[in-house]
């Protein structure tokens, strides 16, 4: 049998169907912004950062392959004579090396008799060269006029680790300084750097943001990491790498007490929120009671429960420290203004940062207590960097760099739409670079 629905149910259902009641005005202010879905621009930025990293890696690999698979070639063998004439040996007409073996770099010492023009009559390795490094070839008599330099070309001779030059009238000891040749350029630099900085904030014309920033103090920032640079030309180089940067700020007008969970327990991911210039801190630590000025602190606890005088709480902090750490992939161009032992250069570029740590703490030193995290912080950001610095060539392979660096965040720290919070920092980048 069909059971008829009581009239009173119908009346209430229909009567309430279109009922609207305006909620209290402050409810909206207590709702945190929802995190932003990754936009296309951010995805492209991420891809670009990945490409930059791949280019760096490719350059590194290509260098490694080149230096481990190509035989060492003599670009030029120069035999300095006492009469200050360079004696070069052209062995284009030389008989082929009869005992091919593994190529190695060998240093020879050569001497010439001052009264005699330099000629290739005999040439042998120095006594301290192991026998297996001695090269041997049948060289023809010198064709050119006496005293005319003989030349060796890199594609015409290969030093091998066994064999012997012979067939000369006299022994000729010669030194072949740096057979790889002084002209072999060290195009790569590998280095580690540390860049402490002080951060600053810019509020633009946003009145609320300016009000928030006024009571927020930037924490010391730093960037550290490893870099690989490639010299495009004598003065211009491109640099990339990977690093970790940390920025943050201290919110000073918030007091934090511990022990709330003894009195109030609710199934919620957070109980308090703190409005900051870089987003909304959600206090996931539900044992903490937060109170503050400037209408920063919001709470899910009903008003009649949010009275600290009812509870026996211990103050554990008088501020909150927001810390953001980013994994960074920089791409920088560097131009040497002065290329000497102590050089000057200018540099500029961008760095893509990927958020790896987003935490808010209270307390000091080893007594730091995690409060929660900041909602609405961008997972990816882009910063621009400009530097003007000094390089000191400690040796032919090691460079010390000291460079004042200005950094400005191109994209806002916060995901909150319309936020203008873009910090900037000024610091010193210092580090050591190794040429190879």
């Amino acid at each position, binding site marked *: 049998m069909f059971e008829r629905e009581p009239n009173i*149910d119908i009346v209430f259902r229909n009567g309430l169907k279109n009922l*609207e*009641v305006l909620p209290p005005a402050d409810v909206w202010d207590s709702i945190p912004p929802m*995190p*932003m*879905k990754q936009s296309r621009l951010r995805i492209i930025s991420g891809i670009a950062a990945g490409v930059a990293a791949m280019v760096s890696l490719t350059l590194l690999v290509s260098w490694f392959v080149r230096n481990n698979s190509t035989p060492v070639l003599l670009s030029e063998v120069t035999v300095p004579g006492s009469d200050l004439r360079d004696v070069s040996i052209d062995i284009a007409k030389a008989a082929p090396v009869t005992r091919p073996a593994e190529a190695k770099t060998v240093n020879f010492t050569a001497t010439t008799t001052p009264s005699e023009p330099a000629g290739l009559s005999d040439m042998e390795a120095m006594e301290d060269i192991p026998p297996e490094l001695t090269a041997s070839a049948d060289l023809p008599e010198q064709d050119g006029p006496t005293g005319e330099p003989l030349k060796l070309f890199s594609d015409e001779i290969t030093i091998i680790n066994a064999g012997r030059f012979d067939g000369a009238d006299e022994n000729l000891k010669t030194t072949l300084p740096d057979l790889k040749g002084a002209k072999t350029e060290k195009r790569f630099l590998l280095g580690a750097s540390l860049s402490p900085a002080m951060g600053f904030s810019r509020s633009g014309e946003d009145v609320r943001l300016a009000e928030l920033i006024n009571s927020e103090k930037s924490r010391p920032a730093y960037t550290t990491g490893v870099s690989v640079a490639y010299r495009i030309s004598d003065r211009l180089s491109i640099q990339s790498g990977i690093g970790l940067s940390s920025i943050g700020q201290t919110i000073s007008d918030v007091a934090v007490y511990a022990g709330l969970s003894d009195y109030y327990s609710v199934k919620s991911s957070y109980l308090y929120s703190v409005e900051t210039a870089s987003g909304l801190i959600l206090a996931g630590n539900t044992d903490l009671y937060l109170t503050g000025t400037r209408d920063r602190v919001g709470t899910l606890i009903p008003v009649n429960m949010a009275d600290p005088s009812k509870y026996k709480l211990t103050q554990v902090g008088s501020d909150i420290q927001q810390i953001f750490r980013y994994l960074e992939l920089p791409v920088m161009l560097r131009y040497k203004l002065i290329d000497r032992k102590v050089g000057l250069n200018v540099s500029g570029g961008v760095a893509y940062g990927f958020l790896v740590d987003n935490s808010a703490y209270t307390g000091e030193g080893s007594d730091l207590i995690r409060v929660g995290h900041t909602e609405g912080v961008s997972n990816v950001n882009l910063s621009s960097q400009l530097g003007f610095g000094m390089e000191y060539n400690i040796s032919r392979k090691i460079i010390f760099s000291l460079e004042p660096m200005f950094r400005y965040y191109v994209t806002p720290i916060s995901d*909150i739409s319309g936020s203008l919070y873009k910090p900037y920092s000024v610091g010193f980048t210092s580090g050591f670079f190794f040429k190879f």
Partner: protein
Amino acid sequence: MAKDKDIIDGCLSGSRRDQELLYRRYSPKLYAVCLQYAGNTEEARDVLQEGFIKIFENLSHFSHEGSFEGWMRRIIVNTALERYRNRYYLNRVDDIDEVTEPEAEPDTDDFAGLEAFDLLNMIMELPPKYRVVFNLYAIEGYSHKEVGEMLGISEGTSKSNLSRAREILQKKVMILTGVTKRMVNV
């Protein structure tokens, strides 16, 4: 006026303005739902806040296939129930199998003079266990079995609570409208 889908897309792309637009558009209706379940404005305020946080957190899961308002309403109702369970789980009543229906009830025409706010106030004045069952059964349309599962009570308890809620509401209506005659169901 912007379409819901455009506002939802805006919210998903992080636009705080679209989030506020969504809130302004639907919060009055949803706040009324909160009041039905909460019984007082403080509790309703908290339910609305928590509910909207969940709406924004789960917005990407909305499939655009059903009613968006209905989807949000379900989230609000579930939030209210969650708070109800947390708060009143210790005050569960024992199962009552015997259900007493009111002897008579007024005709719908007799409620013509009642404003929606009067109805809302009547529901808010109900004891929590009657109010929540009445809302779920009579307003939302759930069965006693479903109500029992949602609240962790038996079907019998759900029926008895509903019966008691109707009885109380009926008396209130009669007092408010001055209806004294006894109407008999047809």
